[in-house]
């Protein structure tokens, strides 16, 4: 036994003083310690362990960990470092045993990733985080524990930075710091190579807005992966600059920005970020807006054009900061205008009014123009978002056309597309009648139909003789149904026609090509002006056709026809093997190019071409077996059906055309449609039209057997127009769904009874973009942003409703109440009437001479005095021709009692949150219910009653409207009496129902009233606004603080009215109204009523004065 071993024993004895795990761990460890260690070193190790254990009461735990991990730690480093490791541990233990324990515990996995020379620094980092408090200790421990994971992605320097960041953050909040530590391990792998930037951004953020740090971490994790890896660094720099320049809500902004960037092509990130960087110097706040708008802008502009748009924005910015911001948010008309000018694309929205009129003119019918996605949404069988089409009453066209480099070309394309679709209606694709005769061909349809029925009956007879008639077998059933199908009344003639063919898909394709060819020829003939664009589009379409040589024979034949129709019958190749058939097809197809050709001719041609093509096996054609088809201008006046046509038709009649085909040939697949011709669905379109007629019949209570859902569904399943490529069960399901939707769609066009109920509020964010009026009776208006000095385009939706009807006795009761006043007013007003017809005498010129004046004149002449030459008279030409719109403020504040005498409180404290607002409103209204006093609104109502009474006496045109609303998407505009409406009991009833509603968004209401006045024919037009306070609404302000925004928008609306020649007058009962009315009605009349009770009388006095 050496000294050392004795020492060892002594130490071991010492160890036994500590709780069991220490010794246990030591015993386990010592056996694992490398043999290379000298006994001295072992002793040293042991002694340090004992030191640690002995430091404080709880430090034995640290020691236990120390022993436990030692073997694995020493295995990864030389002894000298091991000593340092132990020293660090010891000193940490001096600070806090828990900390040391964590340090030891994390060591083994850390050491494999940490350079040995960094041990001390690492321990120092943990130590640094420890501030002697319980929370800091937790943080520090966790730091140690997380280190191994962190080091997977971070270098040690970065780890140091991170620790510093945590430290800095921990000064603010330990919890936050600790959460960031946890988030760190998720995020750093995502950050990629930009950890330094990320960390430095994080550190900066601690100083400027430490509360956001956590969300910054979370946002970072989501944002970064969306950005092109090479650009992430710049992105982070941008964010950092934004922080430095005082931006708020950085995490949210980062998320938004990255979201927008992810919508862009990755190649564009570089350019967009480049702009963003420059923009940062101009106006940091505009930068995020710019990036957020970029995807929208790039939908319309190329990346080069984006630069010019950006430049224009910067210019705006330099002149007007708010204007620039609005520009980059695309919340200014200028911004849109610039975009529109730069863009080469044609947007549906912009040209809709023009093109819709164009289409209506051409078709001579109530055509509507809609974007294709609207049709797809209806889910009635049309599925393509791109293809233009029509369903009989609406022409559907793509939302954006950006196929060519210039606007002109795009526009031309758009026009060709619309013209072609309208041609379906103009030249009657859908008025096909099965039994109407074709002029160009012998009529084979009826004959063929007869043959088919015979063939089916025969087949059925055969079956019934073979099988037991009592138990019909499945195939028999099917045929029976088939026969029933042929015998019943067809839903549409189109369907009846397509029922002739076994392969409906092929028949439909042929029909489509022939019909489109007919229309194209017709359009080019009827509209020479559009011919050049048409030919251009046709030849472009021709270039985009699939390679004909790759198609199997039958499809190739159809493709051959498409090309013929696009190429004016020149240089089209066809399989050499079927040259004869191709020539035949071409000859037939060509006949319908005649100007007088009708859709029935198309049908006959289809029948013949089908016969030819169906007889061709759908086989592959070797690439060499093709040749150009030559068409000399053969005279096809004397076209006669070739002899074998009879045979072919015979086969179709038997329903045999499919059976004769070789085994294993490919199924016929529809060929790619011609883009500009779009999606032609004659069967569906005709069906829709008939359904609509049927619906109308029902309205008119006439006869006509309504189509059942089942019939419709069956029809849809048979049709080749629906793409029901699914298993049997699903076909049932989806055709059912289509049938459902089609029924709805056909019914949707019926006139609807006006719905007076208040719709539910749809909440649209104020930060959102433009609004579209989707429902009937909704109108969209711009709003003026006075800071940006520009309109926010299509910002508010006005929903026009008719006021509900209430008690008609209210009207009479009010008149009684004001008995004397009523008579007085009425007399005053009646006195205005004769003034209009008063004869004006003593004029130099006039209608006629006044004989008395002439005599006087004569007398003067005879007596030698100078005569008065004014002896003509004229009727007063100043005719009273007045139209006036009264706009009543029916906001919640008009529910204020007027007797209580307390000053009107401003509703500005209305909560901004939609839900809270409604609650607030309800409480307020609830309070009003228990009233026994008069409210402002009551005075308004009474005024209206008196006014109507007076106005009816003089016969002015007048309208009474109430407005209120909540938010820019819900400006309610209630019609009490429309301008053109005559006064009736209904109006009386409606007045009773005027009641306080929501907020006061004046601008759009004024604009709508102006719109109504514009459509009224009168010499004097007046807009009379009666309100009880300043305009205000949720979001009717900039960032919810500036009341001036609303005032300015209202002012602008009034200015617009003035420009339209409409005089406005504002009457308010808000005693504090002077401050804003001065701005709002700067050069218009306004009056503030001191006593609301004067309202009725004053209103009438003002009215008289205004209209005299």
């Amino acid at each position, binding site marked *: 036994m050496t000294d050392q071993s004795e020492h060892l024993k002594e130490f071991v004895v010492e160890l036994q003083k500590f709780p069991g795990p220490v010794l246990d761990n030591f015993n386990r460890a010592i056996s694992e310690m490398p043999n290379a260690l000298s006994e001295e070193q072992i002793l040293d190790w042991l002694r340090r362990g004992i030191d640690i254990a002995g430091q404080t009461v709880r430090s034995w735990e640290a020691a236990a960990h120390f022993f436990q991990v030692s073997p694995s730690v020493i295995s990864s480093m030389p002894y000298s470092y091991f000593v340092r490791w132990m020293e660090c541990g010891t000193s940490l233990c001096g600070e806090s045993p828990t900390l040391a324990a964590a340090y030891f515990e994390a060591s083994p996995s850390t050491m494999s990733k940490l350079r040995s020379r960094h041990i001390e620094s690492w321990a120092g980092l943990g130590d640094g985080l420890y501030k002697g408090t319980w929370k800091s200790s937790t943080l520090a421990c966790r730091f140690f524990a997380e280190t191994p994971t962190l080091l997977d992605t971070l270098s040690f320097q970065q780890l140091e930075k991170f620790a510093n960041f945590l430290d800095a953050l921990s000064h603010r909040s330990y919890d936050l710091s600790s959460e960031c530590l946890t988030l760190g391990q998720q995020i750093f792998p995502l950050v990629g190579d930009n950890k330094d930037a990320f960390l430095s951004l994080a550190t900066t953020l601690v100083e400027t807005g430490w509360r956001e740090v956590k969300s910054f971490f979370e946002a970072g994790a989501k944002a970064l992966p969306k950005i092109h890896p090479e650009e992430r660094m710049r992105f982070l720099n941008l964010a950092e600059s934004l922080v430095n320049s005082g931006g708020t809500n950085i995490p949210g902004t980062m998320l938004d920005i990255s979201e927008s960037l992810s919508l862009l092509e990755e190649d564009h990130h570089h350019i967009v970020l480049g702009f963003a960087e420059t923009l940062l110097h101009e106006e940091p706040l505009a930068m995020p807006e710019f990036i957020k708008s970029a995807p929208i802008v790039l939908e319309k502009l190329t990346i080069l054009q984006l630069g010019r748009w950006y430049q224009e924005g910067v210019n705006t910015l330099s002149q007007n900061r708010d204007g620039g911001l609005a520009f980059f948010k695309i919340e200014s008309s200028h911004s849109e205008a610039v975009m529109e000018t730069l863009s080469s694309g044609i947007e549906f929205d912009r040209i809709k009014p023009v093109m819709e009129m164009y289409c209506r003119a051409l078709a001579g019918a109530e055509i509507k123009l809609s974007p294709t996605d609207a049709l797809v949404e209806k889910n009635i069988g049309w599925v393509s978002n791109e293809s233009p089409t029509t369903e009989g009453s609406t022409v559907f066209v793509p939302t954006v056309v950006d196929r060519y480099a210039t606007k002109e070309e795009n526009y031309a394309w758009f026009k060709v597309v619309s013209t072609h679709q309208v041609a379906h209606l103009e030249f009657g694709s859908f008025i096909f009648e099965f039994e109407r005769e074709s002029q160009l061909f012998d009529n084979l349809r009826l004959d063929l139909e007869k043959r088919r029925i015979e063939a089916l009956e025969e087949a059925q007879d055969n079956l019934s003789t073979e099988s037991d008639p009592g138990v019909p077998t499945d195939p028999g059933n099917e045929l029976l149904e088939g026969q029933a199908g042929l015998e019943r009344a067809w839903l549409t003639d189109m369907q009846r026609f397509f029922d002739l063919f076994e392969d409906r898909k092929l028949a439909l394709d042929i029909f489509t090509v022939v019909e489109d060819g007919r229309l194209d020829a017709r359009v080019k003939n009827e509209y020479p*002006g559009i011919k050049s664009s048409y030919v251009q589009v046709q030849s472009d379409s021709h270039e985009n056709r699939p390679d004909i040589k790759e198609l199997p024979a039958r499809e190739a034949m159809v493709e051959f026809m498409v090309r013929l129709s696009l190429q004016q019958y020149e240089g089209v190749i066809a399989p050499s093997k079927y040259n004869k058939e191709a020539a035949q097809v071409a000859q037939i197809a060509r006949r319908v190019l005649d100007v007088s050709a009708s859709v029935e001719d198309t049908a006959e041609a289809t029948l013949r071409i089908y016969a030819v093509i169906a007889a061709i096996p759908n086989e592959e054609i070797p690439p060499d077996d093709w040749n150009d088809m030559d068409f000399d201008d053969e005279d096809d006046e004397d076209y006669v059906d070739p002899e074998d046509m009879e045979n072919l038709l015979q086969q179709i009649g038997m329903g045999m055309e499919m059976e004769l085909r070789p085994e294993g040939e490919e199924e016929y697949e529809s060929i790619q449609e011609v883009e500009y011709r779009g999606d032609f669905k004659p069967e569906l379109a005709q069906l829709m039209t008939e359904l609509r007629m049927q619906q109308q019949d029902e309205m008119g209570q006439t006869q006509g057997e309504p189509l059942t859902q089942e019939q419709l569904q069956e029809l849809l399943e048979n049709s080749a127009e629906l793409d029901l490529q699914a298993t049997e069960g699903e076909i049932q399901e989806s055709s059912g769904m289509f049938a459902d939707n089609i029924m709805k769609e056909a019914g949707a066009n019926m006139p609807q009874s006006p719905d007076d109920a208040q719709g539910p509020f749809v909440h649209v964010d104020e930060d959102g973009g433009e609004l579209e009026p989707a429902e009937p009776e909704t109108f969209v208006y711009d709003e003026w942003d006075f800071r940006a000095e520009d309109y926010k385009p299509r910002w508010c939706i006005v929903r026009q409703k008719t006021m509900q009807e209430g008690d008609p006795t209210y009207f009479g009761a009010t008149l009684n109440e004001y008995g004397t006043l009523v008579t007085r007013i009425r007399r005053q007003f009646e006195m205005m009437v004769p003034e209009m017809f008063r004869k004006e005498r003593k004029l130099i010129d006039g209608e006629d001479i006044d004989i008395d004046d002439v005599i006087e004149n004569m007398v003067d002449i005879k007596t030698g005095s100078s005569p008065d030459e004014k002896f003509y008279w004229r009727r007063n030409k100043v005719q009273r021709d007045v139209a006036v719109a009264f706009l009543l403020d029916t906001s919640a504040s008009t529910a204020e009692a007027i007797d209580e005498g307390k000053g009107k409180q401003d509703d500005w404290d209305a909560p901004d949150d939609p839900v809270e607002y409604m609650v607030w409103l309800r409480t307020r209204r609830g309070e009003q219910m228990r009233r026994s006093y008069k409210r402002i609104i009551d005075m308004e109502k009474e005024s209206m009653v008196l006014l109507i009474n007076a106005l009816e006496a003089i016969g002015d045109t007048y309208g009474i409207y109430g407005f209120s609303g909540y938010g820019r998407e819900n400006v309610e505009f209630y019609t009490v009496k429309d301008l053109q409406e005559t006064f009736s009991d209904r109006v009386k009833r409606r007045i009773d129902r005027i009641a306080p509603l929501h907020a006061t968004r004046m601008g759009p209401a004024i604009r709508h009233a102006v719109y109504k006045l514009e459509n009224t024919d009168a010499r004097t037009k007046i807009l009379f606004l009666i309100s009880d306070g300043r305009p205000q609404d949720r979001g009717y302000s900039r960032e919810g603080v500036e009341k001036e925004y609303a005032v300015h928008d209202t002012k602008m609306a009034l200015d617009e009215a003035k420009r339209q020649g409409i005089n406005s007058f504002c009457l308010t009962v808000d005693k504090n109204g002077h401050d804003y009315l001065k701005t709002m009605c700067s050069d218009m009349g306004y009056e503030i009523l001191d006593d609301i009770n004067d309202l009725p009388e004053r209103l009438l006095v003002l009215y008289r004065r205004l209209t005299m």
Partner: protein
Amino acid sequence: MTTQSLYKSFIIEEYQLQEEPYYVPIADEVELFEAAYKSRLPLIFKGPTGCGKTRFVEYMSYKLGIELTKVKKSDSDDSGVNLPLVTIACHEDLTGSDLVGRYLLEGDQTVWLDGPLTRAVKAGGICYLDEVVEARKDTTVLIHPLTDHRRILPIEKRGELLEAAEGFLLVLSYNPGYQSALKDLKHSTRQRFVSIEFDYPPIELETQIVAHEAGVDEDVAYQLAKLGEKVRNLKEHGLGEGASTRLLIYAGKLISEGITPRRACQVSVNWAITDDESLQQSITEIISSIFE
């Protein structure tokens, strides 16, 4: 008198058409007019502007004049036709005295001057009141006694009742298109007339008319007629009135003078019928589709 060679002026009741006006009957209006004239039933022409109402009345006055001449004046001198046509354009300030007549001062006394209506009544011609709804209400009442069996014109200022001459016939025209509620004919007025409805001619006839009047070839005329047809489809969609035949003829005339068709249609059709910009654009599109 030297002034006479400078301009041609007619005394109102002596205005007669010397040449047969060009008119293509669209329906049975010629027969109707002749039948009505035989019984001296007053007529009212309803129809949009520029569809040929005035031309028709000219045509009929000429045609009936010829017949009258043949029957009655076969032995007289070469005065030719003798059914005068008195056309009065009604405007909103047209008063009763404008129609009937008024006293004028001449020297020391007043002199009565017959109004055009009175002169037509005396002369026994066709009196054509164009756009009658525009005139003031008192004028329409004034014509009542002329339109029933009485066939008299009271001249209250002179205290006279004037019996209408043999050939007198009252014809009104009005355009229901832009009538506002205020400017509608009273029922008591309307029910005194036989109404003939006019509309723009069908495309084939209009082609023929435009070709004749404007001196353009059939193709251009057809295209113009087609433009008319298409633009008329837009009525009730913002257009108060469709493009009239008259406008199409104007366009045709410009074309025959060498103006390019698109431009000619633009100035004579498009800008004439609407001020609405988006509608103008739509019509421009139609023009550019139809004309090369």
